[in-house]
């Protein structure tokens, strides 16, 4: 017979609650699974079928872990948000900006790409762009480890690009209002070029590391689940 306590314990090992609270949750949930299994056996199902039906009570243990964590630790909602979103996001942002500053100061000259008929230029800091996939992967790892939802993981991965997008979006209306003498077409074109160079390209580079890392970590968790079953 399946060891329900052990199955639940393994899946909820990362539950960020007080040890006593965690033990109680594990005991309660394993008792529920055990009773579900016993009821299915009484109804005449085979042991294998009963195990499969019982395990189908939980589609995604990670989601369950997060929901329990949020529900049990009301006072910890803020700390969940901090560990699942803010710490990974700030870490990716700080690493990304520090590397950009380092590559501007000590790195090779930036690669400049000019568009024909447009005064704006794209400036690439190649070492920085090459480092961004690793920073994205780090963000995905930190958010995933803290039990973050896919949304929290991708926000953490993309946070450096989102922060720059936020700055651009707040600067553009100010620039349009304040500088009446500037040709709006030039500003719009420059804005689009800046968006491409400072938001879309870095976002793509961050995702290039963050997405595989997230998929790998999710698959590892799923494999662990199958193995434990």
């Amino acid at each position: 017979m399946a060891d329900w306590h052990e199955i639940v314990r393994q899946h909820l090992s990362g539950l960020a609650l007080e040890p006593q609270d965690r033990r109680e949750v594990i005991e309660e949930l394993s008792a529920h699974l055990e009773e579900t299994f016993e009821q299915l056996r009484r109804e005449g199902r085979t042991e294998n079928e009963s195990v499969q039906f019982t395990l189908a009570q939980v589609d995604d243990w990670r989601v369950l872990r997060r929901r329990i964590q949020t529900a049990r630790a009301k006072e910890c909602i803020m700390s969940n948000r901090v560990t699942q979103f803010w710490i990974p996001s700030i870490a990716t942002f700080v690493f990304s900006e520090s590397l950009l500053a380092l590559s501007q100061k000590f790195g090779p000259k930036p690669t400049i790409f000019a568009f024909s008929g447009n005064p704006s230029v794209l400036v690439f800091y190649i070492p920085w762009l090459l480092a961004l996939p690793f920073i994205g992967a780090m963000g995905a790892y930190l958010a995933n480890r803290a039990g973050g939802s896919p949304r929290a993981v991708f926000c953490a991965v993309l946070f450096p690009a989102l922060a720059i997008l936020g700055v651009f979006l707040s600067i553009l209306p100010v620039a349009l209002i304040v500088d009446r003498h500037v040709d709006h077409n030039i500003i719009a074109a420059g804005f689009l070029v800046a968006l491409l160079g400072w938001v879309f390209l870095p976002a793509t580079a961050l995702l290039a590391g963050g997405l595989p890392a997230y998929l790998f970590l999710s698959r590892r968790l799923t494999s662990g689940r199958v193995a434990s079953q």
Partner: protein
Amino acid sequence: MIGSGIKRGTAELAVLSVLQDGPLHGYELARRIEQQTDGALRFTLAALYPMLYRMEQQRWIRGSWETSASGRRRRCYRLTPAGKKKLSPLRREWAELFRALHRLTKVAHG
């Protein structure tokens, strides 16, 4: 599609209504709801416990460990006075909603 707010509301009403008859542990609570609704409402473990814990935080229900005659330890949930107070307006709201929907569907088909 039924929104999460509506789903949560019906689930809370179901739990509070069933617990009004007496304390139950999670598994029995899920079975009772399924039986009393002829299988229309079913709670998996993944849906049930986060909701019970949330309702416990809101102090509508209270859980305590009890040992059965067979020696099995179970966490039994009972309705608190705050839960009882919550139940009547919740019932009224849902009854109004169902009446309104019933009227609406009758008009639509009539």
